[in-house]
């Protein structure tokens, strides 16, 4: 794959042109034809929620104007690519909006651009040409690698291009279809964070979870041998302050020179049985290897069609070193509490039965134990229990409005069935871009991983939960309810203190728990 510079410049030029050309002219310049796939974030997407003053400068025009999201800009937005770094502003055309609201709108716009970039077809076509089962860019092994394909048995090293053999029971099916997705189930695949419980859909199947990382993350892990528990424990790593690469845009006025930095994706899947369901979801054909129950028997390997129901993105950027946290989910997952109260319900949801009362089906309850899938039942739960989930923290009106706009330009594809919940970002920007006081040029990326006393830098919004990925920790109780940054800020590695008793021991793992999966 080669990065087509002329095409990239054309896209950027078009984005800039939106500020000075009538929309019809802008649309006429777009050629949304298939083109050779190029690396994600090459070039960086410099669009933002505000029309820029001059292409490709990120500075908004004066007075500020919102970037339209409609038929006139559809092609430019859908082909704009991956943002390497957020472009946000406290300004906006609506004087009734607070600075916080203006910034939130900018981050939410960034999140939608990211969602579109990642879910566009891997073959380079624009997203509006995708079918439900079209392979996306993040499903392409050239762009993302599953966590368990990095954290190999025995802490073995690997290269980015290595093809990792599937679990034994999946081998024959995999060899017949080497492009198929393989999900090797471990506890984190069916149990939610902090072992808070499994999620069971209305058909009685387990929801499944998976984590992937991009090349920049992989390279950092490989460079420091963090894929190995023993290497994390080694003396060589005792002084390492884990600091993943941060995304950065090209210098102001330039097109080239940026990089997306470290990105992690966490997804949730629902088993799809009916053809009717398959039309509403993005789907993958997958081999699911059930958890191992004993050392002598290979667990069953099941071929399933899975539908995407949740989509988290973690993106570290130079200006938001505590990462930016994006969360999407399928519109039919669950109702909001307010919709339940007013009985404005859809006929069906994936994780809520509108015909069951709260006595029979109390909401947001964990299933009865055991939570482990049982080999004889496949992905069916062992009891008749079905999750009855309600979203307790509603989306803001502004986010709902933006969702409608983006869903309108995705109309006719399954992607119109996905919605942004919110974007959590560090609102104290002095804290968020702070670098180490003893910064050394040879350190890369030389950010301040010790950002104490509060390295979260005032997350906004304070709480954020996906109904399929943080189902049982929704709410607004400090230090208890789901907050991406407040939780991940506590992530650590296996690192041990150095022999020097005066050395400051520091084993924070830069907001990610993935290093705990080293073997």
């Amino acid at each position, binding site marked *: 794959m080669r990065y087509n510079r002329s095409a990239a410049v054309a896209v950027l030029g078009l984005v800039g042109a939106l500020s000075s050309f009538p929309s019809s002219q802008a649309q006429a310049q777009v050629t949304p034809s298939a083109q050779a796939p190029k690396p994600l974030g090459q070039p960086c997407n410099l669009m933002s929620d505000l029309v820029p003053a001059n292409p490709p400068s990120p500075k908004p025009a004066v007075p500020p104007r919102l970037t339209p999201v409609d038929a006139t800009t559809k092609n430019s937005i859908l082909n704009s690519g991956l943002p390497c770094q957020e472009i946000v502003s406290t300004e906006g055309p609506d004087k009734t909006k607070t600075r916080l609201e203006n910034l*939130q709108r900018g981050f939410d716009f960034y999140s939608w651009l990211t969602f579109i970039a990642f879910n566009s077809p891997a073959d380079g076509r624009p997203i509006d040409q995708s079918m439900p089962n079209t392979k996306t860019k993040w499903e392409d092994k050239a762009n993302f690698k599953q966590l368990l394909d990095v954290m190999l048995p025995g802490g073995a090293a690997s290269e980015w291009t290595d093809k990792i053999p599937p679990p034994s029971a999946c081998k024959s099916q995999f060899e017949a279809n080497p492009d198929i997705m393989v999900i090797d189930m471990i506890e984190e695949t069916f149990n939610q964070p902090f072992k808070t419980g499994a999620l069971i859909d209305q058909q009685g199947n387990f929801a499944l979870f998976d984590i992937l990382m991009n090349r920049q993350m992989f390279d950092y892990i490989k460079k420091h041998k963090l894929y190995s528990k023993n290497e994390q424990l080694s003396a060589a790593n005792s002084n390492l302050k884990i600091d993943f690469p941060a995304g950065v845009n090209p210098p102001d006025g330039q097109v080239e020179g940026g990089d997306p930095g470290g990105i992690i994706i966490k997804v949730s899947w629902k088993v799809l049985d009916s053809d009717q369901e398959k039309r509403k979801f993005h789907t993958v054909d997958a081999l699911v290897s059930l958890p191992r129950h004993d050392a002598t028997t290979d667990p069953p390997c099941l071929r399933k069609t899975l539908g995407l129901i949740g989509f988290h993105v973690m993106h570290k950027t130079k200006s938001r070193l505590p990462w930016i946290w994006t969360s999407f989910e399928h519109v039919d997952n669950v109702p909001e509490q307010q919709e339940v109260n007013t009985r404005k319900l859809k006929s069906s949801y994936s994780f809520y039965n509108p015909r069951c009362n709260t006595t029979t089906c109390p909401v947001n309850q964990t299933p009865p134990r055991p939570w482990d899938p049982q080999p004889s039942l496949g992905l069916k739960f062992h009891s008749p229990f079905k999750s009855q989930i309600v979203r307790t923290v509603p*989306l803001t009106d502004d986010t709902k409005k933006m969702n409608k706009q983006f869903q309108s330009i995705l109309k006719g594809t399954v992607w119109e069935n996905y919605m942004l919940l919110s974007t959590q970002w560090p609102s104290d920007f002095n804290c968020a871009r702070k670098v180490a006081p003893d910064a050394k040029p040879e350190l890369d990326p030389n950010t301040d991983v010790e950002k104490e*006393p509060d390295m979260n830098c005032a997350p906004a919004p*304070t709480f954020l939960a996906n109904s399929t990925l943080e189902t049982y920790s929704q709410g607004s109780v*400090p230090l208890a309810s789901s907050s991406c940054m407040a939780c991940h800020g506590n992530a650590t590695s296996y690192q041990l203190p150095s022999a020097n008793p005066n050395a400051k021991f520091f084993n924070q793992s830069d907001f990610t728990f993935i290093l705990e999966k080293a073997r």
Partner: protein
Amino acid sequence: MSRLPHPGPNSIARGQKEDEMAGGFTRRTVLAGAAAATAAISVGAVDSPANAQPRQDMILFVLLSGALTGIAEAKLAPGFRPLPSLTDIDLEKSEPGSDPVDVKQQYFNWVNKRRQATLRRLLQITKDSLKSPDRPQAIIDKVQATPDTKYLARSIALMWYLGAWYDPDNLRALAEQPNPPAKASSFEVISPKAYTQGWALRVAQAHPMGFSEMQFGYWSRPPSPRTDFIGN
């Protein structure tokens, strides 16, 4: 202060929404609350265009609070941006902060509801001191000129440090009367959020009981320098 207030009969302010009582804001309440509060807080004292009033009042309140507490304005109000610089502040260009917790707004509203006229004078003092070579000291000197401003300034400082409201009249009684009434020691915890955002324990390089934003394992290391906590 000649006499520190003692713990005494106290209460937690009532009338807040459940999520605020829990110490946090939902996205909806943060955004709606910020918008509503912004519309509601105009003091109407400082000579600026009407539409710029709430924003400029809040900038002045943050600067006043920074002078009274000794804590950096950007720590009291994350996102606070004095423009073009902290020593040459243009109220029209500066930004009062944009954090979602926004305790400064709650404090402003609290004081404005109870002592609007005196708060107005404090903000004017702050505005008059913007060009002073040592702005914090200039503010402190001027607020001590009258008992009203002096004791409200003390209340505001205590509010930031303790998350509690000590009425200025009570503080005056404690300071000036040989035998102040017992009620003079009373205080009111402004909100659960105010408890979590209190600065007293942060200045001690610690955190409020039951609420810590410090990193996992912080107890195994010496605390960060105080400057990392308070910014000055």
